[in-house]
């Protein structure tokens, strides 16, 4: 393996361990925020990330965390590129990460959004709200109710379990 590829592989390993600042049980890679690691035309290491929500305040923290991780691993000069397309979707969250979210007390997003611009050229349309069944991440009961469409961060809604009485966050399909 040549040195350039080794650097990229090493960078993936290092960045794999960078947690999401707001949900530290999952990594930025598992959430689908980290899109690519490559060398730019000028040979500089490029880390490509994509924002979750347009106004996600964690993005600058994520960029800082990436820079620190790369510096600590002494991988040399790098830059961070932010891309918008294809638009981030909760469909990219890995199964393993969904299970981690559930164990952490956050109900993972249900169903597919079918909204990934990568998989479809059809414009996204407004879909009227349909009642999804959200299972309580603590007791597993599907006897739950929505308290608020907007929760503690842009990506979450607030729910309550009617059986175990615990409130919980739900990672909204996006």
């Amino acid at each position, binding site marked *: 393996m040549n040195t350039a590829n080794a650097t990229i592989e090493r960078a993936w390993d290092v960045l794999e361990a960078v947690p999401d600042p707001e949900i530290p049980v999952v990594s930025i890679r598992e959430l689908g925020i980290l899109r690519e690691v490559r060398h730019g035309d000028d040979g500089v290491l490029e880390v490509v990330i994509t*924002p979750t*929500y*347009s*106004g*996600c*305040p964690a993005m600058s923290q994520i960029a800082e965390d990436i820079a620190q991780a790369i510096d600590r691993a002494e991988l040399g000069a790098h830059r961070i590129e932010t891309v*918008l*397309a*294809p*638009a*981030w979707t909760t469909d990219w969250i890995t199964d393993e990460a969904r299970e981690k979210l559930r164990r952490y007390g956050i109900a993972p997003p249900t169903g597919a*959004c079918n*909204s990934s*611009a990568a998989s479809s050229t059809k*414009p*996204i*349309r*407004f*879909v009227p*709200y349909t009642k999804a069944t959200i299972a309580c991440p603590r007791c597993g009961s599907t006897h739950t109710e929505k*308290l*608020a*469409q*907007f*929760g*503690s961060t*842009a990506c979450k809604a*607030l729910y309550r379990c009617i059986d175990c009485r615990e409130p919980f966050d739900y990672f*909204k399909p*996006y």
Partner: protein
Amino acid sequence: MSQDHLAYVLRLADNALILGQRNAEWCSHGPALEEDIALANISLDLIGQARLLYTHAASLEAALNGSRKTEDDYAYFRTEREFANYTIAELPHFGPLAGTARAERDYAVTIVRNFLYSSLMIEVWSALQTSSDAQLAAIAAKSIKETSYHLHHARDWLVRLGDGTDESHRRAQAALDYLMPYTREFFATDAIEQAVADAGIAPLASEFEAAWRDEVASALEEATLTAPEEVKHVTTGKHGEHSEHMGYLLAEMQSLARQHPGASW
């Protein structure tokens, strides 16, 4: 790349920023904790959309005239006449007696405005996903997901207020009577909109006016509210001619950046 293209992107950005700034006034003053959080979240999305659009505008302007602007130059260092948001976005939350009545915020005004705006933007973002401007299409594909949650929120509350108590119905109807006339500005085509339509950048709003009216009519029916009679007057915020409320909003939003130019925080 053209001046019209830049002007159109700035209109989109200004609408998102100014409504985001208005709705952020509810932060820590919401009628209930959940609504406080909802409005802060919605503002965060809108200001996030504005940031993406201003950053895109900066790259368009750089290509046009070599300027090196940032999102902050547009948000903090333009004057009132340079902002091109719809007038409806800048209005305060306290209803038709603004300026003479006590400056209380009326949640019905907030909800009706968010409903009228987000039901429009669902159509706009939907159409912009196939824009010939790839970056604008990418911003649209993100924004429509957020706007869809905003519309759900506003439409839910519109029905709850309209079809609620006598008092909530009265206030929702008053908010609708107050705000509906401002929506004429959405569909009043001008030279900038015609030019970007001809260039395949954005559709004319008149193309989806019927779809918007259907959505509004069905929500109003469910909310037991009645649309007021059409008026002839068309507001001119998108041409930079604003209501008396805009200056105060900008003063509050821009003062810190203007007192400490170049500061970062």
